[in-house]
């Protein structure tokens, strides 16, 4: 009985894992975007653009442009260079949904 319970729990856990896995890295990176890109409506006058209402494609393109120095900026080129294109795409996808 006990063994069956363990096995069932392990199965459930591994099913959850495979679902969660694809987006896990994106969360770990994307959460850090919120330190600067706050989504608070109180700060509508902020010079740092909100990421709300941007599509995954728009965010992804912006990140790649920063990474490959096609869009000069003070900070983002220094950050975007830390991530692979695939990571940036995953981050864009996550941010467009959250």
């Amino acid at each position, binding site marked *: 009985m006990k063994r069956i*319970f*363990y096995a069932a*729990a392990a199965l459930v*856990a591994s099913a*959850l*894992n495979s679902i*969660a*896995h694809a987006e*896990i*890295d994106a*969360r*770990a*990176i994307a*959460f*850090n975007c*919120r*330190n*600067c*890109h*706050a*989504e*608070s409506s*109180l*700060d509508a006058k*902020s*010079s*740092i653009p909100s990421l709300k209402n941007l599509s995954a494609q728009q965010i992804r393109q912006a990140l790649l442009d920063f990474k490959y120095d096609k869009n000069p900026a*003070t*900070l983002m*080129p*220094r*950050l*975007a*260079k*830390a*991530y692979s294109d695939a990571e940036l795409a995953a981050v864009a996808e996550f941010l467009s949904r959250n």
Partner: protein
Amino acid sequence: MAGLSRRRFLQGVAGLGAGVLSGCGGLPLRSGAKAHVVVVGGGFGGATAAKYLRLLDANIQVTLIEPKAKYVTCPGSNWLFAGLANLDQLTVDYQSLQDSYGVKLLVDRVSSLGAAQRLLRLVGGQSVTYDRLIMSPGIDFRWDAMAGYDQAAAEQFPHAWQAGPQTLLLARQLQAMPDGGVVLMVVPADPYRCPPGPYERASMMAYWLKQHKPRSKILILDAKRSFSKQALFEAGWAKHYGYGTANSLIEWHSLADNPLLELDKQNRMLTSEFGDSFRGDVLNIIPPQTAAQIALQQGLTDSTAWCPVRPLTGQSLFDEFIHVIGDSAHYAPIPKSAFAANSEAKACALAVTSLINQTPIAEAHWLNTCYSLITPEHGISVAGVYELDSANAIAPVKGAGGVSARTDGEAAAMEADYTRAVYRSLIADTFG
């Protein structure tokens, strides 16, 4: 560990998890909650961890324990010296964490951690049990580093390294100083809270002195040979404050080989090992630092007086159920900053939810961005992106990060603007 946490997990599934001792006035575990995570310290690390835990998994009960009902942010506190902010504008509370995220707040101070029973005792008499504990209690000071400078002396010669009354006291002393007076700023060796903080403070003081007491001088007496964003600060000081000339408002001296040993309170004088003495009208002595008292007392620190952790999860090397983040913990080469504490908290919250839910732990990504104002219109920045290297140690990602690349007026003005915008965002992300 896997066995233990699996058992706890199954208990949670079966609804048997009990987070809190009954009969001690402890908190009951909310029905349906699968685990109780207690966060100690409502600063940048603790508040972020509490909020993101609830965001990640609403079935985890989160209790935040913090003795102060309101928290004054150190970031922005240097702006006081330039007359750009007051303490009220830098004060936040925990209302939103409670109302919007369902974090339970206990306004109290933790007096001990009973690691064996996973039981916290609070100064107010209550006790609270936890499934996992996240500690972010900040810093304390080494009062034995300089003869004559102790806690009592700090009331007269403020460090102002924890924002609040000390910051106000120092600002008032600066305002009361005669024109032509000398501010002595004593800066410790690494590691300490906010590596660029002293130089930003000197800049903000110089900005105010330039307008009100232009014959004055700020003497920075540094235990280091070099400092964070040094080239950017020095270029800014040269541009605005005559740095490098006889009339400079700011002078920087490395005393790496000639440490300051003694404070003569009566004469407001500091004496170094070689017998050099420095007299000031205002003394801002920033002592060397350690992890907060509670971490030291409860055996979470090593010989460095900071808390060693496994970086991926933030777990203490001494107790796998206790995670330490923020300034108390040893996350070097990530600097001790609010931005970093926020980032460490998010990585830790992800790891803690994974441990509780028995899912794989995500690769950790940390970020630090730190802006400093040299004048209200001249900002500079440094950024660092960090990951685990093949030896599981924290390492900066090669080819990324670094200091402001452009230093022309337009970029400096943009970075000054971002300094303020990032402050507001960081507060919103942490406390909002």
